[in-house]
């Protein structure tokens, strides 16, 4: 028994040594990357860019399902983005509330015939509407088919070569589109590009814009600010130097439409459609030996509301992990396959063994260590120190993300916010991390039971203009709509 426990401990130690070394590598790689990106962002001449006709036209895809409370404000905010040439396609995905009526009244919609061929099959369209007041706006009304299906319908209808999928409840910063197109202006072979998603909870929102960025005081949303910083600023930046990440946030990612057509658009059966899409994009482009990049750039920002209750957060994390497991299983042929270059040899193994299996290994580690302690097979000092070192490492990574934020974009101006960031980066490992591990382990159970339905997501909605008060629950997402 003692030998088994020692063997298990050793295996887990080795696993975390390899995994943490990889994180350390990402951390080191993120330094030159953020340096370069910050320099480029600071030196960009937006006035000149705005006047230039070089900016590639962009179609903004906005899937909406039962978004009645926020749709008007969201679309109005998107319509006022600082970009010269863009159109917005809002897809009313069989909403049961009055989302379409709200749009019709707010933007003076009138029905138009379809003016494009259906290149990606979707649920039937009921009608298309243009706006008398806003020529950039096209509204599709279709039968409910889920977010991926809505995005596919919008891709079919889009006229421009670049498309960006935006959640109806995401707030995009006015210059975010200009910034997102930077890699295209630098002449790179871009297949897709991702921007940063930040946490809007606690921020002051006015006219659909975050006017004052704050770190929320409550623990759950506050700790997610640190999580998001870590995921975006150092995780994804590091991946830029390792052949590109497998994830571009579904809430804020710009794609070249021809490639989306080539892979048949979003997969409607997928649980996490953004991960699935990017993995398929890598696969397609590698198989066709095309030169491409899928970079992440940190300065374009979209703000999103994160769950404030453990119940909803648990569902979200369980679903994300379920999607990761499903994608890794679906595309297992890419794993360690040299045909897919660095994606097959580095990214896929990292996501499969590091991201996907890490919670299982961590839980097993806790169980073995506790068992060993109870049986007297493990030295108490060693076990405690090991846990301390593991948590300390987690803290280091979180603090590093705060460092990157501070030396680059510094969105949180107040010392109080900085203090909260440091506090949450420290406290994250005591309780919160273990809970997220447990939620992610539950995803394995769900996959085992072949659970396909999406969890119900309840959002509070952003602050109304100029006030801090949180509105009561306004947006409800169910089943197929994410």
């Amino acid at each position, binding site marked *: 028994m003692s030998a088994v426990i020692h063997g298990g401990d050793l295996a887990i130690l080795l696993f975390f040594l390899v995994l943490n070394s990889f994180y350390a590598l990402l951390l080191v790689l993120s330094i030159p990357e953020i340096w370069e990106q910050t320099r*480029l962002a600071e*030196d960009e001449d937006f006035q000149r860019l705005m006047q230039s006709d*070089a900016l590639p036209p962009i179609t903004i895809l906005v899937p909406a399902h039962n978004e009645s409370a926020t749709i008007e404000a969201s679309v109005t905010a998107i319509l006022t983005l600082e970009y010269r040439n863009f159109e917005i396609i809002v897809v009313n995905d069989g909403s049961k509330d009055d989302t379409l009526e709200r749009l019709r009244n707010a933007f003076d919609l009138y029905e138009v015939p379809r*003016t494009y061929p259906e290149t990606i099959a979707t649920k039937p369209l009921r009608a298309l509407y*243009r706006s008398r007041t806003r020529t950039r706006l096209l509204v599709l009304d279709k039968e409910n088919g889920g977010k991926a299906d809505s995005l596919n319908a919008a891709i079919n209808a889009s006229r421009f070569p670049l498309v960006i999928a935006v959640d109806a409840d995401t707030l995009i910063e006015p210059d975010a589109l200009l910034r997102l197109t930077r890699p295209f202006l630098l002449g790179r072979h871009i297949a897709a590009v991702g921007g940063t998603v930040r946490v809007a909870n606690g921020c002051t929102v006015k006219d659909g814009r975050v006017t004052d960025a704050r770190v929320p005081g409550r623990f759950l949303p506050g700790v997610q600010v640190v999580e998001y910083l870590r995921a975006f600023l150092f995780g994804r930046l590091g991946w830029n130097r390792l052949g590109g990440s497998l994830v571009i946030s579904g809430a804020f990612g710009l794609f070249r439409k021809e490639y989306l057509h080539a892979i048949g658009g979003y997969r409607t059966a997928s649980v996490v459609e953004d991960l699935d899409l990017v993995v398929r994009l890598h696969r397609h482009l590698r198989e066709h030996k095309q030169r491409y990049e899928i970079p992440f750039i940190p300065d374009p920002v979209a703000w999103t509301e994160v769950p404030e209750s453990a119940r909803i957060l648990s569902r979200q994390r369980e679903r994300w992990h379920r999607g990761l497991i499903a994608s890794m299983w679906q595309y297992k042929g890419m794993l360690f396959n040299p045909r897919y270059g660095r994606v097959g040899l580095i990214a896929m193994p990292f996501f499969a063994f590091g991201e996907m299996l890490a919670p299982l290994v961590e839980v097993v580690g806790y169980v073995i260590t506790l068992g060993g302690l109870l049986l007297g097979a493990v030295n108490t000092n060693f076990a405690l120190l090991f846990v301390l070192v593991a948590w300390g490492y987690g803290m280091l990574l979180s603090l590093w993300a705060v460092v990157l934020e501070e030396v680059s974009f510094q969105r949180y101006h107040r010392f109080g916010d900085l203090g909260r960031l440091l506090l949450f980066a420290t406290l994250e490992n005591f309780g919160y991390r273990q809970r997220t591990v447990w939620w992610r382990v539950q995803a394995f159970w769900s996959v085992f039971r072949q659970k396909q339905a999406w969890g119900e997501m309840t959002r509070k909605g952003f602050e109304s203009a100029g006030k801090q008060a949180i509105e009561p629950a306004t947006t409800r997402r169910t089943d197929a709509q994410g």
Partner: protein
Amino acid sequence: MTSLQFLWVVAVAQGILLVALIILIILNRWFRVRRSARLQPRRQALDAVMQRWTMGQAPAAEVVQALARLPVSLAVDALVTWSARVPGERWQDLSRVLATQWWARVVRTNNRSARWWKRLECARFLSVAATPHDIGRVLRLLRDDHPAVQIAAATTLERLTSPILVTAALDQLPFLGPTVQAYYASALKKARPAVVRHLQQLFGRPDDPRLPRIIEFAGRLEHPDLRAPFTALATHRDPEVRSQVARALGKYPHADSVAALRLLARDGIWPVRAQAIRSLGMIADPATVQLVRDALRDGDWWVRLRAGLALTRFGASGRNVLLAVEVGAHQPSRDMARLVLGLSPQALAEYAA
């Protein structure tokens, strides 16, 4: 060393690193706040002087003095921002005064720096303050390895007209990505005479693989001297060249253009036909209504769409054709006519773009 001792070493190292990071974060914030407080009044002073200089109430020397009080990167930022608001001749005066400043001389020498951000700073500076003496530097920056430096250097073409720079930029144009091409093109438009001369030379080489991109750019210039070379290329064997010619000819309402477009509207390749029909709509010669009407029966959806949209530009005669086709026997033409007739003026304008 036992494993326990090793863990202790790691734990202590981590602890030190954690404390160091927290100190670093706090110091960085403190330093930034102080720096910002120090520089803000200087920035405001510069803005005030610039404002007065723009209105002719302050000499350029005063502006230069205020610029010298800022760190170089901020001074360059301020110059770039203000350059868009000040008339060209007045700005050239400032450029001449700046040429003698020590910090400006340092920035200029950075065109040979090993660090790309220094070269980028130099390119941005030259994009607003270059004088004819800087042509060699700009040429070097145009050929830089870093795309951001190239882009900034290309902007110089808007202010500094030089055949050498134009030739260098035009030679690079076909090898650039579409977005960068468009950016170069917008800068090159300002140097039109030199560009047109060089383009005419390039059109004389029909086997040049760069030809499609060159035609695409030339089409944007809408210069009358380029119409004849375009029509001459309407029978080129490369469909990409024919497609670009078909697109460009829409901006040249001339009998020769219409003749070439008639030919291209019957091309075997559908993108060429679609572009030719679109251009016929832009010229809107009544004699071509029948040809555009025939294109409504094309086997390709996009050509039919272009034909439908083109007919809306022929005024009443085009609309009558669409109304007649809408009740005709040919199903695809009927569908397209119905679709186009249902479009709002705004939607039509957008599709025509």
